[in-house]
């Protein structure tokens, strides 16, 4: 019975699926292939070479902006995950009350407000603060990234908390664990996969943000994505492909690593 309704048996399912994957991955595949092109042009294939990786590696600006990207992503993801964990605990370990749905919406606001609106708003506010305080360091970027990373960290953590049997925490309390010990010995260990997933998502989202970063950064604070954006305006060489490919491999590496770590925990 069940087999007859299997979605894979629907007419045209297989061809549609192949088309979708094709559209998703063909551009990326092309980009990766041309990263190894031994030519100054993006479009004409001349031969295999690691030349552009070499160029990118020796480009001080690329390395500098990459390091900046990782610094911001690491700090912002960490801060966002801590806030998101606290928010998730506060919104799930409570009896439903009037206004709770509003709080969900409030926490997830960055997913709903157009990024460009947030970017312009932050530009205006931060430029004032920069004048008042005289401080123009990475703090602004970190603050902005933390803010828009919160919902990405919040959603998997909340999902994990909601699927957790509340009786487990009750049982811990019954077995002489205070609230703090219950959190430490029961809630937190069971929450880890959710927290790691949230951290990973936040990290990746921060890493490739362009819009908010472009508006908030001060001079000389390019991250890798904004640096690349700037390069493209000036004519493109396969160096961009090489950087993108390296970025892609790194991202996949991080996601895979997190996936395995979190799977071991469950």
């Amino acid at each position, binding site marked *: 019975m069940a087999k007859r309704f299997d979605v894979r048996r629907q007419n045209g399912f297989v061809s549609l699926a192949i088309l979708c994957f094709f559209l998703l991955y063909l551009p990326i595949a092309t980009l990766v292939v041309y990263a190894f092109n031994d030519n100054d042009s993006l479009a004409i294939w001349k031969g295999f070479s690691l030349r552009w990786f070499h160029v990118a590696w020796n480009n001080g600006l690329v390395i500098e902006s990459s390091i900046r990207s990782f610094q911001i992503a690491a700090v912002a993801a960490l801060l966002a995950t801590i806030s998101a964990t606290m928010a998730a605990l506060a919104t799930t370990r409570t009896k439903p009350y009037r206004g709770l749905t509003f709080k969900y919406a409030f926490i997830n606001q960055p997913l709903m407000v157009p990024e460009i609106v947030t970017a312009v708003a932050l530009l205006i506010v931060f430029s004032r603060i920069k004048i008042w305080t005289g401080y123009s360091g990475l703090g602004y970027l970190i603050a902005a990234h933390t803010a828009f990373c919160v919902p990405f960290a919040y959603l998997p953590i909340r999902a994990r908390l909601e699927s957790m049997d509340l009786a487990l925490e009750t049982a811990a309390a*019954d077995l002489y664990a205070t609230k703090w010990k219950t959190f430490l010995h029961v809630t937190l260990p069971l929450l880890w996969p959710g927290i790691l997933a949230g951290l990973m998502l936040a990290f990746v989202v921060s890493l490739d943000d362009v819009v908010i970063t472009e508006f908030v950064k001060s001079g000389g604070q390019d991250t890798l994505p904004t640096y690349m954006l700037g390069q493209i305006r000036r004519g493109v060489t396969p160096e961009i492909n090489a950087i993108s490919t390296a970025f892609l491999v790194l991202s996949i590496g991080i996601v895979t690593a997190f996936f395995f770590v979190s799977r071991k925990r469950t």
Partner: protein
Amino acid sequence: MRPAVEAKGVTRVFRGTGQDSVRALDNVSVAIRENEFFTLLGPSGCGKTTLLRLIAGFDFPTDGEILLYGQDIAPLPPFKRPVNTVFQSYALFPHMTVADNIGFGLKMLGRPKAEIEARVDAMLKLVHMQELKNRRTSQISGGQQQRVALARALAPQPKVLLLDEPLSALDYKLRKEMQIELKRLQHETGITFIFVTHDQEEALTMSDRIAVMSSGNILQVGTPWDVYDHPAERFVADFIGETNFLTGTVENAGNGQAQVALRSGAKIRAIAAVDFRAGSNATLMVRPEHAKLVKGRGDLGGIIENIVYFGTDTHIHVRLDEGDVFMVRQQNSRSAGCGFENGTRVGISIGDDAAQLLKD
């Protein structure tokens, strides 16, 4: 002797939205003796689990006191009460081994490692689970999880063990085994057990005493024999076991005895625990195994409607002249059939102590 647990005028009201609030417990008082297997029995929604949660500290009474050996524990959080619980869902910690689960309570109490290890081993032995010590709780069967849950709750040597329908998730055979196992554990540990169930058979076979509950009240507290053979009111008689009810008018009453006239004119002598006025309407109860079918005239008469074979006994449903159906349970023997046939007219004889008058 001071009771192990005593509820004094306990009320728990759950405030709903607006006007509707639920009185889950309504001025309940009960005393549970030390070293007793005490069962809270009732249908779902009767307040039995609420009372258990109040004793455990997962919930707090709206009014009243809960005493543990004379000390009011009602305001204490669960982690300050020397009381442990076996949960319906077991609530074993999935990220810990069997041994870590059992040792959790002692660890939280800050006991030394050596003591915890010794106690965990003793508990594993008590529930026959030594080989599975280092397994994850997800790698053991439902019956084994049940044993771990028991061992975990018993390990800190609580003064009282609370059991919230712990056998409901097990299949019939395993449940029977665990009933005996629980009785044995209670006997060996000497801990007071408070057991919550809606299964009257389970309550009758395991308990020293049973409290029968309905809509937030305790209707009767007594031994299994008490509640089965001398139910205080109609609800108790109906909820526990199978019962025939007959309505009639009291002709005379006194000295714990009464004579009741049924509509058909049949007169039946019954035990009357409380005083009934002559002339008042009353309900009579007769257990199916306390009545006997006779060929010819009995105390009641009717026509056999249905005969159901149950292996150990046969249930014979008789349509009485009153119009009601009366069920008689007859022990089977190996050689003979039940001796009666569908559609034939029979009499039902009711012994002197078989019928009882009940409050409605």
